[in-house]
């Protein structure tokens, strides 16, 4: 082994520093200065009407104070119906969304699918991710009318983009050799997926699914604002009537359910590792 000439004695006794990320010092400091200048300029364009903020503070205070006396009772029937609708929407959309996502995720993993199928599946994912839930919901409400059907379809559609993409990435980063070993035994493609791929991505699939159920529930509260049913519709009505105490009750319920889901998902994910 002949190492290139390097005079070690000139380095001994001198401090060592990690080489900078941007080599050219002029460019390095120029970038930093430019960034700071942009930040200052950007903040200066923010136009705050302080008088308006002062008036608004009073309304904000009322809203916050409503949380100290949430009213679960006077609209309990509406809240119950809205919650039930949201939960049904969430569960139905998650089941359908996840079931559709799995084959698309397989198709969108380059190490499992041939190129044409890969491109099609990646296309579906890109469309699903490009369209924000609210926009999809507005479109679907226009087609199917007000109500939970539009919400259910929106959430299913959004689940596909989310779950397929992340699952496909997990499949792509799996241990190739484990899958190769199954292939070498003469397994068919479906057996190969079942034995070589599925065990490797199962914890991730379960973790993502639970996380998505959680997201779907939260989204279902928003979708009501554009008429796609669920607890969001009840919440919207409460705001329209200035019934902040009822709105507070609904928000508290949403927070409790989301926290409960978060807690359950933590337990399940720890179990499946």
């Amino acid at each position: 082994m002949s190492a290139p000439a390097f005079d070690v004695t000139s380095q001994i006794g001198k401090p060592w520093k990690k080489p900078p990320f941007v080599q050219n010092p002029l460019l390095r400091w120029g970038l930093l200065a430019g960034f700071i200048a942009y930040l200052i300029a950007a903040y200066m364009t923010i136009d705050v009407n302080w008088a308006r903020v002062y008036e608004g503070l009073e309304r904000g205070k009322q809203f916050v104070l409503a949380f100290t006396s949430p009213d679960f009772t006077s609209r309990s029937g509406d809240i119950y119906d809205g919650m039930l609708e949201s939960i049904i929407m969430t569960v139905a959309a998650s089941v359908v969304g996840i079931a559709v996502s799995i084959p698309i995720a397989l198709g969108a993993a380059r190490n499992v699918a041939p190129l044409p199928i890969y491109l099609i599946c990646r296309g579906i994912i890109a469309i699903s991710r490009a369209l924000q839930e609210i926009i999809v919901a507005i479109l679907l409400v226009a087609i199917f009318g007000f109500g939970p059907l539009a919400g259910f379809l929106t959430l299913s559609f959004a689940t596909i983009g989310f779950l397929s993409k992340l699952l496909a990435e997990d499949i792509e980063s799996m241990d190739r050799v484990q899958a190769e070993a199954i292939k070498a035994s003469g397994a068919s493609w479906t057996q190969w997926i079942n034995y070589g791929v599925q065990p490797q991505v199962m914890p991730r699939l379960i973790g993502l699914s639970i996380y998505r159920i959680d997201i779907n529930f939260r989204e279902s509260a928003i979708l009501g604002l554009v008429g796609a049913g669920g607890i969001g519709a009840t919440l919207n009505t409460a705001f329209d009537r200035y019934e902040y105490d009822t709105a507070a009750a609904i928000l508290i319920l949403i927070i409790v359910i989301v926290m409960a889901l978060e807690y359950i998902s933590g337990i399940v994910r720890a179990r499946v590792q």
Partner: protein
Amino acid sequence: MLRLDKLVKTYKTGDQALKAVELEVPEGQVLALIGPSGAGKSTLIRCINRLVEPTSGKVQLGDVELTTLSSSGLRRERRRIGMIFQEYALVERLTVMENVLSGRLGYVGFWRSFLRRFPQSDVDEAFRLLDRVGLAHMADKRADELSGGQRQRVGICRALIQNPALLLVDEPTASLDPKTSRQIMRLICELCKERGLAAIINIHDVALAQMFVQRVIGLRFGAVVYDGPPDGLTPDKLTEIYGEEDWEATIEAIGEDEDEEVAAQ
């Protein structure tokens, strides 16, 4: 039994991993494939069962030409070729039993394998093999709970339950300690002898190879530069395979090791 005829593999990057390799392996012969990293040992083995597609040349197993097979024909032939991997390549989240039975996937239909309802004869054979390697009590453990040596023994069971005619063994001892390495090599060679299996074993450890096999193939830059008995590996030959280095110590060590082995028995 196995014949490679002018086997060439050129990767997309332009690297020629195999340059017209000719090799004939008779029934029941265990041979070691040695050579420096990047010499094409892994590629050679994987070209045989077409985990890597050879660029040109022929692979003849029995009277079947493997390189031209359709995907279903290839699956059928892969059943006759067991493979043992470096780093074991067990599916870590499956149980030991599932890993062993996965060697039968080429013989059972999808639904049977999906529901884990393998024929009784397969299950019996799996238990017999696990017992042979001393792991029958571990059948329901998850593969990632096992130690390195245990995992490799499960890997051996998985290859053998295929009832293969040929074993391809890729660096079986690369991540094992010296003692376990010997045990694994001995086990592979014993099982090959019991079942009259031919085997190609890729191995880094020249001394270990010389201890256990009847024939050594030296590969350098994708070409066979040595083909002969293990004790024909002189310092000159090793230099030809690996490049300049002091080989006397390696060769002496083998002599001593063998003495120890005899003394220990």
